[in-house]
């Protein structure tokens, strides 16, 4: 198992480098000039100098190489410095955003907590709701509960977040005036009242995200439990005279959790991607919203870094899912 994990991790490096090259070339191909907003009165030579100051004078492979060095060598040093107070990265050039002229990773580090709060809470909530419903639906297949559950999850599966978002805003924020529609990211939690404010402003975005995830997970959990309920070992367990509770909860559920756990792991990066729309609707100041604004401002280093972070998440969670599958299911051995 360990060798397998190590092999996968090593193999991930060329994959990631290829992905970063693909993203970089895509951005290179793109038209659009970071100097487009500079007034026309600025003479062309000055503009050219400004362009070179942004690192645009060199051919693309040198630019790419520099980006690789900055991202994989200098940024980890900066992180190390911040943690231990050392000065390895002092004076070295980091990935700089063209919008704010400040290091990209600093901005990302500011934004990630917002995204993690909303997305993380939604994900945990969705798992807590979806799994019991899925198990019970499968146990009572074709009952009213199952039909209702399947129907609701089909709806959650089909209604896109850019519709549920405004819909919930109209109902809960405009008509009923129970909840705020805008997520206030500078809000600080320091006592019970401010905690309640934080809770109330999180309800709507979390609901939108959780509905989607619940629908997906519920379908998987139901299908997986159904598969297991018809297995021979369940009949054996019942024939031994075990209580129905034990049969379902400790035999069936544990086995049907195996594929579901990997699906949960595989979906984590998707959620980050899908949260872009939710963040835009509720004006959560997270990384999705950062990507959108960077795109519109033609801030290529920021876009490049953010997209690559998403790619790292995908590759990483793919490996986690595969390894988890091997750990949980003794029938599967990679070595």
């Amino acid at each position, binding site marked *: 198992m360990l060798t397998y994990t190590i092999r996968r991790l090593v193999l991930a490096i060329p*994959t990631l480098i*290829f*992905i970063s090259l*693909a*993203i970089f070339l*895509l*951005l290179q*191909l*793109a*038209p*659009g000039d970071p100097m487009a907003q500079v007034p026309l009165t600025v003479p062309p030579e000055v503009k050219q100098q400004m362009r070179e100051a942004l690192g645009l004078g060199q051919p693309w492979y040198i630019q790419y190489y520099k980006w690789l060095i900055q991202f994989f060598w200098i940024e980890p040093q900066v992180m190390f410095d911040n943690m231990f107070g050392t000065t390895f990265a002092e004076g070295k050039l980091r990935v700089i955003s063209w919008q704010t002229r400040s290091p990209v990773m600093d901005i990302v580090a500011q934004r990630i907590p917002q995204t993690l709060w909303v997305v993380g809470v939604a994900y945990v909530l969705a798992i807590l709701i979806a799994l019991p419903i899925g198990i019970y639906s499968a146990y009572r297949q074709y009952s009213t509960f199952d039909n209702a559950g399947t129907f609701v999850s*089909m*709806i959650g*599966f*089909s*209604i*896109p977040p*850019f*519709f549920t978002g*405004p*819909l919930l*805003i*109209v109902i809960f924020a*405009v008509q009923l005036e129970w909840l705020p529609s805008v997520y206030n990211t500078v809000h600080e939690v320091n006592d019970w009242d401010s905690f309640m404010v934080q809770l109330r402003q999180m309800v709507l975005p979390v609901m939108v995200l959780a509905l989607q995830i619940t629908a997906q997970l519920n379908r998987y959990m139901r299908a997986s439990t159904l598969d297991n309920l018809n297995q021979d070992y369940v009949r054996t367990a019942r024939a031994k005279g075990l209580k129905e509770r034990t049969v379902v909860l400790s035999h069936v559920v544990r086995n049907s959790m195996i594929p579901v756990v990997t699906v949960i792991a595989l979906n984590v*990066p998707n959620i980050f*991607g*899908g949260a*872009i*729309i939710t963040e*835009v609707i509720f004006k959560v100041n997270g990384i999705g919203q950062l*990507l*959108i604004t960077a*795109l*519109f401002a033609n801030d290529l280093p920021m*876009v490049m870094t*953010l*997209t690559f972070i*998403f*790619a790292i*998440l*995908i*590759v990483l969670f*793919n490996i986690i899912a595969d390894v988890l599958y091997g750990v949980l299911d003794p029938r599967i051995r990679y070595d």
Partner: protein
Amino acid sequence: MTDTNTYGALQDKEPQKEPRSQWSEVWDQFRRHKGAVWGGGFLLFITLAVLIGPYLWTVDAQKLDIRAKDMRPIYVALWDSSAKTGWNHPFGTDQLGRDILAQMLSGGRASMSVGWAAMLIALLIGTLVGVVAGYFRKLDGPLMRFTDLVLSLPILPLLLVAVTLFRQPLVAFAGSPEGGMFILIVAIIGITSWMQTARIVRGEVLALKEREFILAARSIGTRNGAIIRRHLLPNVLSPIMVSATLGLATAIITESALSFLGVGFPSDYPTWGKLLADAVPRMERFPERVMLPGIAISLTVLSVNYLGDGLRDALDPRIRGR
């Protein structure tokens, strides 16, 4: 010498029941899935509505009529008699006086054509890659590695990047903003969503390739191309059809999401997603402008998903006939 009359089993000259083709079996199973029948019916209805509707409701979707702006849909008159309603605009008008029913119809046309076109492209690439990878052993490794690689690309961010960055040159290339956007969005959604189809098709082809009928075909000298066309493709049709329905749903949602984020179609060539996005800032006063396109998207996707569910059950011979 055997006398055929002595064996009862050899006597029936013809089968007791009409021979049934595979597709009538499939149809019977499909009919039993109520959701699928409703889904298929609704999808047919929507498709016909957006195809024929503009000929029946001949109001121009882009005609500005500033005197009749901000009209409410006709049903608002049921509870609010002072609301500005009228039968000449049954779904009301927007802030520039454009008729919403006409916009919904033309927007649906755009959304559905983007969905179908993108789905067909994804299906074509996916089937091609899947069949080639499954059939030719030498190409299997590289092609599947490539598929895995594309699968680990962050799709939504990349879509956003590509659509924002390539908007201008393609608009210039196609000669009109909506033509350029159509090509761009369809191509990009198609290119980024073929991977699941490729994987499924490859798996099926790998299994089918070892079967006797392929061996028989090969032994009488059938060429590779003909084996693939005549023997393999008809047999992988069912997984392809199921992934086609999923692809249609995803393509419609992705296009609407792009339009919602403001990188999709321009406002004078609205799709359902764009109509929804344009209505969001004023949804407190005119909630119907968000509801109508939103419901249209959701119902279409819901019906496509149900259709896919039903197709999967109907095309699976293990479930069929139970």
